[in-house]
């Protein structure tokens, strides 16, 4: 195994990790506010198709700026679709598990509907952030050779970790998730805060989805997120609702998802390729069992997770 092969593998890991890291970071904020949004897969697909469509249609006029507009549109589309979920669970107090699932099914359908006309097209992708002599360096490209979204995802994890643990607003958001009734009685607008958290989660899921259709493969295919939205959900639980462990966990799952691609090349071909394709999902289930055995202080679910709160009753 050469160093070049190793660098190749690392670059792939970072690539496949970025979308689940983005989606999971958004979901972390949503769950910290006490809401469980299972619709990540749907929001990611809506983001993926929107980002692609906007980039494709503005490409001829905007050139290099088109992917940026595409990503912003993907974020807005993700947030907009999450509002559908928010109205139902927050204002109408509907069941969060079922509503999140409805959002996932809706997103799969809507994205195929919008994307039907874009199958087989290709969009220009982002340039790398750093200059070519760094980004193209055979060794240093492992640090500098990525699209802007990779660095954005890392930035968001640190920003969310700082926001939740070091700011007053983050403290209020956590209070809403731990005890909605107390937060309400001292005057915090519980549902307004949850609306904002859900919108933020939707935006990051949308951008995470756009990473599939604009960076990994710059084209649209039906259900191209292939269940990664569910992995992102497992990742949040796996992280124990902490940003630091979320980052580490995301790369752990990234390695597992890369195994499928590299299994043959690295001599693991004695097991069928389907085993490696199933590996991230098997690992997610095992990981969820393992963390419940080794319960670490402060890594419990927010106390109000999944509970509806209807203040005007």
């Amino acid at each position, binding site marked *: 195994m050469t160093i070049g092969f190793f660098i190749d593998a690392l670059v792939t890991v970072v690539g496949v990790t970025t979308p689940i890291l983005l989606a999971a970071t958004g979901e972390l904020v949503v769950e910290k506010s006490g809401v469980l949004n299972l619709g990540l897969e749907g929001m990611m697909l809506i983001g993926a198709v929107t980002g692609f469509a906007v980039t494709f249609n503005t490409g001829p006029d905007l050139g290099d700026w088109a992917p940026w507009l595409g990503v912003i549109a993907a974020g807005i589309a993700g947030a907009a679709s999450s509002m559908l979920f928010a109205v139902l669970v927050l204002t109408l107090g509907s069941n969060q598990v079922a509503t999140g699932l409805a959002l996932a099914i809706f997103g799969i359908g809507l994205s195929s509907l919008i994307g039907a006309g874009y199958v087989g097209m290709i969009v220009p992708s982002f340039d790398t952030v750093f200059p070519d002599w760094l980004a193209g360096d055979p060794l240093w490209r492992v640090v500098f050779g990525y699209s802007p979204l990779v660095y954005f995802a890392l930035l968001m994890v640190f920003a969310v970790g700082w926001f939740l643990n070091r700011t007053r607003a983050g403290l209020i958001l956590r209070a809403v998730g731990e005890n909605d009734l107390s937060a309400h009685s001292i005057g915090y607008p519980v549902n307004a805060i949850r609306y904002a958290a859900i919108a933020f989660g939707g935006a990051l899921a949308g951008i995470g989805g756009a990473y599939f259709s604009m960076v990994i493969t710059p084209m649209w295919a039906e259900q191209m997120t292939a269940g990664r939205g*569910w992995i992102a959900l497992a990742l949040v639980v796996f992280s124990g609702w902490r940003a630091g462990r979320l980052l580490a966990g995301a790369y752990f799952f990234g390695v597992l998802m890369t195994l499928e691609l590299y299994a043959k090349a690295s001599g693991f071909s004695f097991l069928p390729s389907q085993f490696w394709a199933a590996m991230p999902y098997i690992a997610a*289930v095992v990981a969820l069992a393992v963390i419940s055995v080794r319960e670490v202080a402060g890594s419990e679910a927010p106390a109000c997770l999944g509970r509806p709160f209807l203040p005007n009753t």
Partner: protein
Amino acid sequence: MHIRLEKRLTPSRFMQIATPIASVLLTMALGAIIFQLIGFDGPRAIYETFITPVVASYKWQDVMTKAAPLIIIALGLSLGNQAKIWNIGAEGQYIIGALAGAGVAFALPDARGFWVILLMIAAGIVGGMAWAAIPAFLKTRYRVSEVLSTLMLVYVALQVLNYLVSGPWKDPNGHNFPQTPPFTPAQLLPHAIGGTDIPPGLVVAIVLTLVFWVLTTRSVYGFSVRTVGAAPNAARYGGFDASRTVWSTLMISGGMAGLAGILEASSQLGQINLGFPSGYGFTAIIVSFLGRLHPIGVFLAGLILAVTYVGGQVAQTVVHVPSATAGIFQAMMLFFILASDILVRYRVRILRDAPRTAPAEAVA
């Protein structure tokens, strides 16, 4: 003026029946508008999706064939949902059930007699139960959320299927297509029961609907499941064991999904191929909620969702809407039914604000 919600002492029976009907009608109305806006013949698309399969008798067999697995799976899911145990991986249990049944078939290639198909069906049920046993074990032993574990196992089941049909069970005479050999006549159920249009799965669905109706409304077990869902503390006080409820509901829903899988494989397809997972396990979740978790409601909702499947294909060929259309209508129905849930549990009061005279003076 403002709106106030008053909690009902008991859920409104009228709303429980009226809201699913309203959800379907609203989906048709909104669907027509949306498809008109994005450039299709909206009313026509709705007519072909929702009405054509009902009025055109040559579509009935197709509707009943699609309704059978939806109803069978959704009956099981509804039981768990009443206990707030969310099995959203029925699709995986459906796949493993079919594979287990097929495994029996391939192990007994020369066997004759009706017992072969019965053994395959039994294996299908056991296969679905075994796949659902993993989340049940993880939930009761390690408190792993069944929402995530059941879902993850769908993707694992898909890879198991992929492996078997393109590896060990691949049809040697299949021109290299990823599919199993066809079942022998002894391993097959008829498409439809002698001389009628009724598929065998629908007969099973009708019988099971009645069984589940007795189970949920007339048995202590049904009461214990509802109590665990509605009032876990009261259930514990009353001696209803929560982990037994987790196990039993997951076993029943997993077994039902497995049964649906092997019935589909042995009566409709006659083999298993990569296209076998068709999303029935996910759509059954919509059926369960649209049927308000009640067996009779689930039966009717299964027929309605089957109509949208069949009608979606009609609309695709007649109005040229994309294949995703039926899925969007199905999700819209689920959104509406969940949104209207509040009307079942709460009374909505619209109050006029009292004129702002100072109440303190009146007291003084």
